[in-house]
């Protein structure tokens, strides 16, 4: 399964800036980026291997393609290519609900849903939420996010930023809010651990805490479920673990939903999890004690 991430946000929020940074990062993993407006993509010419029609191929193996009118057809083209990407990133249009696009990743057997990032125009959000034409559209976008990313902090006053953060945390208390930064890839990786290992939080986050758990112990899914039910300050866990029966796999927990997928691994692969929540989370040793098979 190829991980799929969706980058959403209202027109002008800064999606293209985010994507351009992603593309131009030379060490980017081999990915396919499907964008709405091909002409806005600015690739450093030194990175371009081939520029043709509605596709740019980069030397690092990434391709950037125009979405065209049909997301399904564009995705099929990417999946059927000679050299399928290690991950796919889709830019949602400025008025669409990125959650509905991510449904493709949720339902398709070939894809794995790997996070919706909604970029928030910090300076404009308050006006957008008061705008009769677009308030409902913007609200639906925010509600679909796994991570809200504040952009345009250079032009938003600190007071405005604080108000926006407070408002987002009030309305969408389960969604982490982060600041857009130069580290686009880390932000993505945080949503979705890849082969390079679970990434860790890019600071500053607003009021969210992360714990990384690295251990040789075996995970107990039953204990993990019970633990999640007790902890309303933990809303998300991602990473890899080994079970008592020696299965190795990919774990994703969002709220009460737990997904486990067994994947091939070498014997020395251990547990590498990132736990995301609010306030003072237990330390990694305590988490291990709570969710691992007892000695």
């Amino acid at each position, binding site marked *: 399964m190829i991980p799929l991430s969706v980058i959403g946000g209202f027109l002008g929020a800064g999606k293209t800036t985010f994507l351009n940074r992603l593309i131009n990062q030379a060490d980017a993993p081999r990915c396919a980026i499907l964008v709405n407006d091909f002409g806005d993509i600015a690739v450093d010419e030194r990175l371009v291997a081939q520029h043709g029609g509605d596709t740019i191929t980069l030397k690092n193996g990434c391709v950037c393609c125009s979405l065209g009118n049909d*997301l399904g*057809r564009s995705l099929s083209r990417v999946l059927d290519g000679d050299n399928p990407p290690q991950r796919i990133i889709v830019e949602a249009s400025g008025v669409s609900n990125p959650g509905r696009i991510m449904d493709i990743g*949720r339902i398709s057997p070939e894809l794995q849903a790997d996070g919706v990032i909604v970029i928030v125009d910090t300076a404009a959000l308050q006006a957008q939420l008061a705008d009769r034409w677009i308030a409902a559209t913007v609200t639906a976008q925010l509600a679909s996010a796994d991570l809200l990313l504040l952009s345009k902090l250079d032009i938003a006053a600190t007071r405005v930023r604080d108000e926006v953060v407070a408002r987002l945390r009030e309305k969408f208390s389960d969604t982490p809010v982060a600041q857009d930064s130069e580290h686009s890839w880390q932000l993505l990786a945080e949503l979705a651990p890849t082969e390079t290992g679970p990434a860790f939080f890019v600071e500053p986050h607003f009021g969210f805490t992360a714990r990384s758990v690295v251990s040789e112990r075996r995970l107990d899914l039953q204990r993990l479920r019970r633990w999640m039910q007790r902890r309303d300050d933990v809303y998300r866990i991602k990473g890899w673990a080994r079970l008592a029966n020696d299965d190795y796999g990919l774990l994703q927990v969002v709220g009460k939903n737990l997904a486990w997928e067994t994947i091939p691994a070498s014997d020395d692969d251990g547990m590498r999890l990132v736990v995301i929540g609010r306030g003072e989370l237990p330390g990694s040793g305590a988490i291990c004690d709570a969710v691992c098979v007892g000695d």
Partner: protein
Amino acid sequence: MLTATPLLVLVMTGEVKTYRALKIITMDGQNPGASHVAVRAGKILAVGGKALESKYGEADAVFAEHILVPGFVEAHAHASEGMIWKLPYVGFYDRMHPDGQVFRGCTTVDALVARLVELEQALATQHEALFAWGYDSIYFSDKPMRRDLDRVSTSRPVVLFHTSLHLITVNSVALELAGITRDNRVEGVYVDDAGEPNGELAEVAAMFPVLRVVGDPVFDVGYAAEDVRRFGRACHRAGITTASDLYSDLEPDVLDTFDAVTREPDFPARIVPALATTRFNLERLRGRLTEISGRGHDRLYLGSVKIVTDGAIAGFSARVRQPYLNGIENGVWYEAPQKIREMIRALHPTGVRLHIHVNGDEASELVLQIFEEVVAASGPRQRHVLEHAQMMDADQLARAKRLGLVVNFFANHTYYWGDQHRDATVGAEIAARMNPARTALDLGLDVALHSDAPVTPLGPLFCMWCAVNRHTATGRDLGPEQRISPDEALRAVTLAPAIGMGMDDRVGSISPGKYADFTLLDRDPLGVEPMRIRDIRVLGTMLGGAWQPAVSPSASR
């Protein structure tokens, strides 16, 4: 007394041909009725009575028994009408193939299944998927589900495309191949009472796994020359000599295809594609307009732009000022309001003609507000068109009139979805006010009517019938206050759309100097009983002076 000087004779090169008809309805207010028309070099030289014969010679009597009207102008259609017929039609209503074969409507689940079984047995290989189009679940109280389609085949995928193309209904094999189960589903995968997927899949995410496995037999392929020719034949059959194609990317290969086919000597219509803004920002839209400029010719008109603001009323996706009957609060924007504003603000002063899709009344409100700003800033210029405009009220229409906008109503909705609008989407009161052609005409607006083919069949006479009678498919009156006269309706499928498309200097009426584009009818649309307008037959069309008789429809099935 003046006589023709030798100089004048020299200027009058080209053979003059005179035609007489039982009646010529010109749609030209200066000369509404005539019996003779003289044509030279593809254009109308003169319109009048028998006196034309003494001037230009004896009239050809090919039209002598029949009624000549201006070639119909289809104000809002899509050339994909020529593509979709690659699949068999299984819709609820009878529908004619561009080549004349009539497909009988499948009005019950059993009839639909029987038709599909017939099609299934005709498939060549054992496991290929069976596709069909034109189905619309809204017409069925006991709508067909996967179990019904399982009666068609339990070994191959069966995929029905809804008319809107936003929905498919599939059988169990298709669901299995796609991996869609009660535990693997998303919004848009509809389920039965037991929680099992019922086969109905809405929108791209739910449809993707199925189309991924079976392929998209229509749009994966793109336009072939034959598709454009098929669209031309469909137009010809409906008496249309000028047809819009109101949503086109005009990619270079598509433009090449349209260019080549419309230049073929017997291509029967002038095609007017509008460039869709969806995929472009302003700068690149302008770039594309520059790229295509100069590519047009007298059967291909380029340079207009289509902006889609909202969804569709029957899909609960139009932007409305009041919630839908089923509790859905509002529809969706297809473009951001600020992008719509930016496009209109930038393109209006440049003379580009805009066709703006506004189905719901909140969408028309937004666009009117934008035009009020834009016209205040840069004055009225070219006429733009509000497309569909289905829910506009008298206040909005009055503002549209002040702004010089043309309204293009989706007249056929009254028939095809009038009952559903009354009972399921917006309710009886609003349904009766939809597509308010009477109010718009009384306010002095130019009013056009359209089919939106392939959403409904091409057929200007049928559009006229809908606006004149306002009957739903079950025969109920829907908003009789909004009826218009046959004369007004004929103008709405000839001159008014020509005005909307900026082509009234060359088509839309039988007037000297315009193209000799005519449609020949077997009866007088202004004379027959209004309920018979839809039964009038198109006997052929003339495009630029070239007569092409209608090809007899082949047998029904």
